[in-house]
């Protein structure tokens, strides 16, 4: 079992003919992902790794019955590409682009919420169910990170995810589904919105959350744990304990979040809600071993 993606998901690749798009299409197929079509305007009729390319998402969906899409388009065009996918009725979208403007991300998230579509990213590696399927950028062949198992992982980071996930593999555990929400200040899906999915997934026994300083996503998870939305064990690692304070947002940042956002505050809220928080990546495996047998 898994969340977001499994062997039945019919995946479309927007921007499939670009160098990143074609490279990762090859690897998505390599893992067994049902990549059913690709889109690059003006390139209809071509094939990439045996996958048919269409001019637009609407036609690709009509021909292939795709129900999910992963975007390998530059950040400047990400908003247009997401709205094209929404317009064609795609239900799950992954935005890998790093550098999507914040105002664009807000428009994307608003639309996704009202249409009840889940959009991951921007600035994410995507989502992977090890051994089954992935949408995005994962070196799934690195066995000490991407091994099948029963731990759900949600993360804001890329390379830190490899570092921390390797610790649960080292502890003899594995991953049910790993979801990257992306490293941007306005992620289109928030950690707390993934909790019900992991809660309802029979294949997930516990969740590892890889957080960072800034924003309020970790505090929201702590609040949700108190309401019973999520009852499985949660282990967290939060990066940036000693990082210099970012004053970018002036007074408004502090007022808007009424003091939330510091790593110390996040850890306190999580521990109060019953989560186990690792002080270093290497402690994650041991903590996870404590909660799952």
């Amino acid at each position, binding site marked *: 079992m898994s969340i977001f993606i499994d062997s039945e998901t019919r995946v479309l690749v927007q921007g499939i003919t670009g160098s990143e798009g074609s490279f990762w299409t090859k690897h998505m197929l390599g893992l067994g992902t049902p990549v059913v079509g690709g889109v690059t305007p003006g390139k209809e009729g071509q094939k990439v790794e045996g996958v048919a390319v269409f001019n637009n998402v609407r036609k690709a969906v009509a021909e292939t019955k795709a129900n999910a899409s992963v975007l390998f388009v530059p*950040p*400047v065009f990400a908003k247009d590409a997401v709205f094209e996918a929404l317009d064609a009725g795609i239900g799950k979208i992954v935005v890998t682009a*790093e*550098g*999507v*403007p*914040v*105002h664009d991300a*807000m*428009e994307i*998230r*608003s639309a996704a*919420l009202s249409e009840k579509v889940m959009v991951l990213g921007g600035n994410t*590696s995507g989502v992977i169910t090890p051994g089954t399927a992935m949408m995005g*950028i*994962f*070196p799934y062949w*690195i066995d000490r990170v991407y091994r099948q198992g029963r731990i759900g992982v949600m*993360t*804001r*980071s*890329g*390379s*830190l995810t*490899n*570092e921390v996930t*390797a610790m649960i593999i080292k502890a003899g555990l594995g991953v049910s589904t790993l979801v990257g929400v992306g*490293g*941007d*200040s*306005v992620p289109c899906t*928030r950690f707390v919105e993934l909790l019900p999915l992991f809660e309802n997934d029979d294949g997930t026994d516990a969740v590892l959350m*890889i957080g*960072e*300083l800034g*924003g*309020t996503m970790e505090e*929201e998870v702590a609040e949700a744990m108190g309401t019973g939305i999520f009852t499985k064990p949660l282990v967290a690692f939060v*990066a*940036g*304990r*000693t*990082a*210099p304070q970012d*004053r*970018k*947002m*002036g*007074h*408004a*940042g*502090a*007022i*808007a979040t*009424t*003091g939330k956002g510091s790593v110390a505050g996040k850890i306190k809220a999580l521990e109060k809600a019953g989560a186990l928080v690792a*002080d*270093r*990546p*290497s402690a994650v495996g041991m903590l996870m071993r404590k909660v799952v047998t």
Partner: protein
Amino acid sequence: MKLFEYQAKELFEEAGILIPKGELVENEADCGRAIDKVGLPCVIKSQVLQGGRGKAGLIQIAATREEALLKAHDLMLNRKVRKLLFEEALSKEKEIYMAVTIDPVECSALIMASSEGGIDIEEIAMKMPDKIIRERVKTFRALFPFQVRNVMFGLGLKGEAFKQGASILQKMFELFKKFDAELVEINPLILTSDGRLVAADGKLSIDDNAAFRQKRYPITRDHFESDIEYEATVKGIPYLQFDGKIGLMCAGAGLTNTVYDLINYYGGSVASYLEFGGPNYRRAAEAMDFTLRNKPSVVLIVTFGTIARADVMAQGIADAIEHLKPDIPIITAIRGTGEEEAEKILRKIGLEPLSDTEDAVKKAVELSMGGAK
């Protein structure tokens, strides 16, 4: 990117928001002329990006010409301020706080206002949250007149001030959208004794990701504390400078923050923090050059890349070492796609590559404290 106060005020003025009479000065010789223009008493405001300028003594008030010249001299010479904004001093009836920012949770623009504006606004927000008026605006939609009225009633404004305040808020919201802003803030917005609302300060922060469509204010040396930070940013390499001993090079913000934490955890100190992941992974040689310029006693390189191929990064580092010939220890934990090849490359140039992050950090900390190589 944060705009300087004088830049934000330039945009306010163009939008029709009242600002104090002011003059920007870059050379000490021009201070006299600026004082003549704005009159006395005057306010002398350092154009720097750090917060809390008032409490740091970077904003001065002068009653006489001599005092103003002396204070300006001190700021430019002793505090190394590059630009000063001279402004008329305003008579204050009331100080208001008004801001438009982003609420990532509700996915809306968030207007915040308070009739208790001024330098203690953060404390007021913490202790008396009721004093902050909040109004959320879905960014797709316009800011409706009823929302503007809600804020003005909340501030207790009446008559002419109500109308002026409403117009200012509407204009701030337009600037927020037009400039891809993360923040538009006026603190304080002063109600003068003759009944005008004037933006005595101004902050406007533009989303860096929107730089491609927001080109009016390019990044300049004034935005940074050091030449290296400026040059690295111009080249698109995130770099921060500190006064510790370990030059840190990582790929990815999350991993960089984690290694920074681990260095502190094991009792070491950081000289600089540099990210060369993502689109920059082929630029390890440049990254190494920036890192060495701050004279660290050890360089620590930690990566666990996906797109950022370990072999390509290792080759860049090998090239940089060959070219720059650093005489300090270099500790690496370079993992991810292509890691076997990376290890060979590093061994070939005489390094002893490590594969565990914490081992690498401990080794670097030990060496930075004068331990054996």
